[in-house]
């Protein structure tokens, strides 16, 4: 095994496993907290008791999910210190500040108001309780924001300067980091996708009630609210996804090229609607990259630049230094061979800085610092032996992107149909095929949501920090076998957690089907 998977691969695998498991819980908390808030608001406005009962039931499922998800994200921080110690040090306070804010927000806002949500029904006024419910929902989103700020910085590092004395990046503009356009877009895209996931969950569980012919009115009312949330969520997710594509075309063009399996770009570039990645394709040969390709004409140009005739660079173009400028125009930038050379120069300047520091030669330290500054943006390229190492895994990125986009299209249709049936043919909702599709969509939405993250994270390989630190430089000097041990321990613990959550959740849902939720 040691020969097959290096420490880097096992550490990446472990991080991916942990992040994927963490992301099973987070979007459901985001989506359910919103739906509960809406139901409770309707109760306060209309005074109808059934909305309160509905809010209470979905709040119970929110609580189960929240409790099972607590601290799963902490494991990622453990992994930073052990598996990724060079990275942890190198990012400096850029990562520390958002994560610290997240910790404080999560602890104080969420834990305080969650207690009021669950324990305060008969203790505080209805208005105060509603405020607590919404503040919990906002707290969940704020927590997500700071984590996404940290993630966005890795994708698009801004607002910092590298200090060779401290050997870490120092934040020079908190606003640039916190309000990075990548972070803002990522936040909305991610949170809105959480609305969609929460909505599918509510529709799916409601379908279970209908299948069991239990709490029919309760289920149909829940489906109406959830379907509106889901429809709004998916439309806005698609809209922010479009914004994300424009951004990626500018700040991570290699990711976009990998998402499309595009090696040589052109003007009026089509978007692959269907195709299979050619496993024999090499970057520089003439073989087709995609087999059985069906494309939407000019689709990628529209997606990347909102201009059907615009040029979209492929992997080879990007390696040769062709990119899209801020205004969507085609520009020549530094080619990857030169980036590698300049990265090596930056690393040499760092060595010279170190030698000067040890010799106490301040002038030489200043000169080395200036040389390092000049090429620092290519620092990470110096670790690459060839330009091919800067290309992400095309097949995985390509397929993950398609799962996300096609799944998103399915979910849009799903909510439209559910809303149509809810208002025009409510009896049809009880049809077993409709309920079957509702239930089936629960795992589908999780797969789609995780596929979005796979696209974002695999598409930025080989970087932990775009252009500055590849994974092979970020990893600690630990043995692959030690990471393997903890990897499998995580598999066991996470599997146990999942069994616990699913069993408690299903038991509560099953219990609910045996009673009248509008009365009991």
């Amino acid at each position, binding site marked *: 095994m040691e020969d097959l998977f290096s420490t880097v691969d096992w550490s990446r695998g472990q991080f991916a496993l942990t992040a994927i498991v963490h992301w099973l819980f987070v979007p459901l908390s985001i989506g359910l907290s919103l739906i509960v808030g809406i139901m409770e608001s309707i109760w306060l406005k209309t005074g109808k008791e059934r909305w309160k009962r509905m809010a209470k039931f979905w709040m119970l499922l929110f609580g*189960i999910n929240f409790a099972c998800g607590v601290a799963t994200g902490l*494991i990622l921080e453990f992994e930073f210190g052990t598996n990724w110690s060079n990275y942890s040090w190198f990012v400096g306070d850029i990562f520390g500040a958002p994560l610290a804010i997240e910790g404080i927000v999560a602890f104080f806002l969420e834990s305080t108001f969650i207690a009021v949500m669950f*324990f305060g029904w008969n203790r505080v006024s209805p208005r105060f309780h509603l405020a607590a419910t919404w503040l919990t929902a906002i707290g969940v989103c704020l927590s997500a924001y700071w984590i996404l700020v940290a993630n966005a910085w890795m994708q698009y590092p801004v607002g910092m300067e590298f200090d060779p004395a401290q050997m870490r990046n120092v934040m020079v503009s908190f606003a640039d980091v916190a309000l990075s356009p990548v972070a803002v877009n990522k936040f909305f895209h991610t949170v809105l996708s959480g609305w969609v996931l929460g909505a599918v969950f509510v529709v799916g569980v409601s379908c279970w009630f209908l299948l069991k012919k239990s709490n029919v009115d309760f289920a149909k009312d829940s489906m109406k609210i959830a379907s509106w949330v889901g429809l709004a969520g998916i439309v806005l997710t698609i809209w922010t996804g479009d914004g994300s594509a424009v951004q990626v075309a500018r700040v991570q063009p290699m990711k976009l090229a990998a998402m499309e399996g595009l090696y040589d770009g052109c003007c009026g570039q089509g978007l692959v609607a269907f195709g299979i990645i050619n496993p024999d394709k090499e970057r520089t040969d003439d073989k087709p990259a995609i087999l059985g390709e069906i494309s939407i004409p000019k689709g990628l140009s529209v997606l990347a630049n909102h201009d059907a005739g615009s040029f979209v660079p492929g992997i080879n173009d990007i390696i040769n230094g062709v990119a899209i400028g801020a205004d969507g125009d085609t520009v020549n930038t530094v080619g990857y061979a030169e980036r590698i050379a300049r990265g090596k120069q930056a690393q040499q300047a760092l060595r010279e800085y170190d030698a000067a520091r040890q010799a106490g030669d301040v002038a030489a330290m200043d000169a080395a610092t200036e040389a390092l500054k000049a090429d620092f943006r290519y620092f990470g390229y110096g670790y690459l032996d060839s330009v091919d190492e800067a290309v992400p895994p095309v097949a995985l990125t390509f397929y993950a992107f398609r799962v996300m986009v096609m799944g998103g299209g399915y979910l849009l249709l799903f909510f439209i149909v559910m809303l149509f049936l809810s208002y025009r043919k409510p009896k049809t909702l009880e049809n077993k095929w409709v309920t079957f599709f509702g239930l089936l969509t629960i795992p589908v939405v999780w797969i789609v949501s995780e596929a979005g993250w796979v696209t974002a994270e695999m598409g930025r390989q080989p970087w932990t920090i775009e252009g500055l630190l590849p994974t092979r*430089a970020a990893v600690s000097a630990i043995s692959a076998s030690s990471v393997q041990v903890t990897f499998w321990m995580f598999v066991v613990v996470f599997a146990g957690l999942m069994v616990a959550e699913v069993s408690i959740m299903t038991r509560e849902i099953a219990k609910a089907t045996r009673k009248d939720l509008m009365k009991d």
Partner: protein
Amino acid sequence: MNRNTFLGRAVSMYVDGFRGMTVGKRLWVIILVKLAILFLVFRLFFFPDLLQENYDNDADRADAVRRALTHGVGEKGIKTNN
């Protein structure tokens, strides 16, 4: 504690809330077992903060990372230990 004060009411809300929990008790067991596994097993025995443990101060940690990032990057990563 006087239940008429704000603090008293807040404390009693928590105390009565925990006492009256049904599903919540199982959830708390899960949370506590999870936290115990994370901090008493994983953190203590399997996930040391390498730089924190191996070096006494930030200057030494910076030196270690500088050495690591400027020398010997290979397939197995960078040597951070002396």
